């Protein structure tokens, strides 16, 4: 089709000429503010309040998942375990364990928070590392008319808030009511239990021993398997997750849920440990709970080379692909759950009930057509977004070439704002993922079990101010060999 010729340009008016110049230069000349002279006013510093006001203070913050409440009717965000607290479907009065101790409270205790004549009845949740004597309450909950999902869940701060200080309330009174409320968190245990799951060193320790991460574990002998070693002639997919840059923001979790048609199961099912997220972010605290180190560890399927799940499935519903993926065959699965029991990473998810809505027509349009909607009684788990791999394979075959590095982005990877997740072909030594895996910081999680996971982690190297923070010894295990 012939392209119509552009109309002949009319002569530009003086303003248009000027306008084009401004656009080209990116600024309008001679519009700068006059420079100001700045001087430090020492007196003002002295005038600032010298002591923290006594008593408890409530701080009002936007919720990490539903923000100010505008997303409160979104099931994905409600079920998303909140950054740090891992709470779902609720907000709570967050306080440090020390403050809770002082008030004789534990997580789930319902308290009355009184400020002036206003009272709010809300359950407490202990948040290690929270500032002492401060209670954080997130916005967006307790709405009466928010829609099918969001109505009537959580606790609204507005009954307490005043226009005078909308973001905080000083001098509140907290009284224990004796009632308790079931707050549902996806992670009940905060401690690493001295296990070498998250490996951390200071820069100094790293310089002394760049291989510190590998040395924290006894690595099994290569080739120690009953079964024939698999050979990967073509692609061999792998992933590396850099824990140095992961902020635990949860983008990957929601991206995965959207990409893979992961159902929302509701508070009662989450309470029973049946959340369906294929990718979760494990959060651990280490050290003093009033001021701990916090670690985030994204946990997708590790796609083990010698996968414990595969050998125990009686019907061969989970098998190894020739590219090293640990495939899940939904229509072959009978749901014995043996694979999940034998998974050391507990990344498998089971459809205990019919979680996906198969009948509502409008939901069909919301789903990813490239991913099976799972039925009741079937096991599922992270696939490394195999549908994206296959799409790239089709494209590359049409163009008669190999899949390029970076051509396949998993959903979690594409959503990660800090590029903590790297995915690609580990058969190609030049691929981004191979380069990350070549780092001395790269380590397999629970490698001593000889699962040989395709997903590996980059150990954390921190550079703390040694005057503020004493150096901790490396790891908990003796050196491996």
């Amino acid at each position, binding site marked *: 089709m012939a392209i119509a010729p552009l109309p002949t340009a009319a002569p530009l008016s003086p303003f248009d000429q000027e306008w084009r110049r401004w656009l080209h230069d990116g600024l309008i000349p001679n519009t700068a503010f006059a420079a100001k002279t700045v001087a430090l006013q020492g007196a003002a510093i002295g005038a600032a309040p010298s002591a923290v006001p006594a008593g408890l203070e409530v701080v009002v913050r936007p919720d990490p998942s539903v923000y100010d409440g505008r997303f409160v009717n979104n099931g994905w965000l409600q079920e998303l375990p909140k950054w740090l607290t891992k709470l779902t479907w609720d907000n709570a009065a967050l306080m440090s364990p020390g403050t809770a101790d002082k008030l004789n409270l534990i997580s789930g205790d319902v308290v009355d928070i009184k400020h002036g004549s206003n009272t709010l009845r809300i359950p407490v949740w202990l948040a290690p590392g929270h500032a002492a004597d401060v209670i954080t309450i997130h916005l967006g909950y307790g709405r009466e008319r928010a829609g099918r999902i969001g109505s009537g869940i959580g606790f609204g701060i507005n009954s307490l808030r005043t226009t005078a200080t909308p973001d905080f309330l000083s001098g509140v009174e907290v009284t224990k009511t004796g009632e308790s409320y079931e707050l549902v968190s996806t992670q009940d245990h905060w401690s690493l239990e001295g*296990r070498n799951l998250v490996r951390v060193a200071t820069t100094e320790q790293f310089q002394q021993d760049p291989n510190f991460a590998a040395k924290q574990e006894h690595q099994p002998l290569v080739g120690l398997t009953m079964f024939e070693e698999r050979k990967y002639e073509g692609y061999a997919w792998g992933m590396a997750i850099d824990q140095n840059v992961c902020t635990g923001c949860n983008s990957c979790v929601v991206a995965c849920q959207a990409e893979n048609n992961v159902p929302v199961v509701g508070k009662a099912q989450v309470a029973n440990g049946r959340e369906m997220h294929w990718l979760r972010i494990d959060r651990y605290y280490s050290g003093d709970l009033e001021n701990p180190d916090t670690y985030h560890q994204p946990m997708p399927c590790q796609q083990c080379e010698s996968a414990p799940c595969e*050998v125990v499935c009686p*019907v061969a519903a989970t098998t190894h692909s020739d590219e090293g993926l640990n495939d899940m065959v939904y229509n072959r699965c009978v749901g014995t759950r043996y694979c999940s029991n034998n998974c050391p990473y507990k990344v498998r998810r089971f459809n205990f009930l019919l979680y996906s809505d198969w009948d509502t027509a409008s939901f069909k349009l919301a789903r990813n057509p490239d991913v099976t909607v799972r039925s009741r009684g079937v096991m599922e788990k992270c696939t490394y977004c195999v549908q994206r791999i296959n799409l790239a394979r089709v494209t590359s075959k049409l163009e008669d070439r190999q899949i390029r590095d970076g051509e396949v982005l998993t959903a979690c990877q594409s959503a990660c704002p800090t590029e903590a997740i790297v995915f690609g072909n580990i058969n190609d030594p030049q691929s981004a993922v191979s380069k990350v895996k070549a780092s001395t910081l790269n380590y397999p999680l629970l490698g001593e079990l000889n699962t040989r996971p395709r997903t590996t982690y980059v150990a954390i190297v921190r550079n703390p101010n040694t005057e503020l923070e004493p150096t901790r010894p490396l790891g908990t295990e003796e050196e491996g060999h």
Partner: protein
Amino acid sequence: MDKSHASVAMSAETKALLSRTPAVIEPGHTFESVTESIGHVVLSKRTPIGWFLGFFIAFILLMILNLTIGNLLMKGIGIWGNNVPVGWAFDIINFVWWIGIGHAGTLISAILLLFRQQWRTSINRFAEAMTLFAVACAAMFPLLHTGRPWLAIYWLFPYPNTMGIWPQFRSPLIWDVFAVSTYGTVSALFWFTGLVPDMATLRDRAKSPFARKIYGMLSLGWRGSAKHWQRYETAYLLLAGISTPLVLSVHSVVSFDFAVSVLPGWHATIFPPYFVAGAIYSGFAMVMTLAIPLRKFYHLEDFITMRHIHNMTKVMLVTGMIVAYGYSQEAFFAWYSSNPYEQYMMYNRMTGPYAVFYWSLIAINAVMIQLFWFRSVRDNIPFLFILSLLVNVGMWLERFIIIVTSLHRDFLPSSWDMYAPTRWDFGMFAGTIGLFLALFFLFIRFLPAIAIFEMRTIVPEAKLKAEHHG
């Protein structure tokens, strides 16, 4: 069967020992009195009111089973308390518990037969029935605990199909399918073969033509000819030979479900012998639980004598001690392995949220059974009944501890969680108890609970004849 017995010369000590040991059949019985006392229970027109009461309770429980299974098939196994990480809970606990109970029946009927243990004679029939019913209860769980039982019921069997796909033979669940189905089949054959001569007795003695017809069909044309007896004895012995390895193999395979996995608390080489001992232990407890009321209400004290009670107690003592040794070795291995995951598993069992169950099972299976050393305890029937019930509780708790505490806190602390059963978990368990009891009540009403013809071989009359022939 045991006709050589009388001709064996006994030393003075053996004789003295025997005089202290209660007889396997009380004196004064003849062929006719044996046949009459056992056959009467079945052929009598009057069903005791107690039977109706017991069957009514069993029937209610059976209806709870129907309700639970119906709901389960409608909604999915989410009606139970299972979750991630505790993928198996009551379902597999009950499966292992029931299958373990069955083992005593096979041990009594097969191994004790091969070892010519005469005292097995009066308890083998109902112990075998117990095995069969326990296997029926057990088999229900691995099928119904799957997410899609309508597929699991045949996909786990190797059959040629258009998909060109076989089961995965590396999975212990497939081994289970073979172990349990073999066990069920052999137990049923063994039980039925043993019943044939008694069916003929009942056929001949039944008054009602209907009963005569039914027992006649079940007796497969038995006329009691020498040839029949010779073939019967051969078949029975062969089946005993086939059953004997099953006593060891079935529960070993069941234990592989755990031992083959990577989980701390499951991944242990001690499991097969430890499971087999536990199975026999719990099985004998169940035989005792059934035998005590049976002999009481049907006045069978002459046939199920104190000798049987004593011997069963002794078997429980031995196997219970093996199980207790297993517990000690589990703890020792956890410590000796220096493996933090194993060590934590043991620490969690002893001090964690389920510690009360762990210590209860230790109290029952390691401490309480020491009471069986005392003759006064072995003689105290009501007390033994309570102890045998407690042993069953203890063995159920053992499986709870092995399955739930290993799963609920494994490698990554992030996925640690708690397990709590729902009413449907209890419904399923109570329901299988109902099925078991209902089948057992029907069994004692319609079939001879004690092998009549085998009992006849141990009355003095038989020995007399044997001596004449000898």
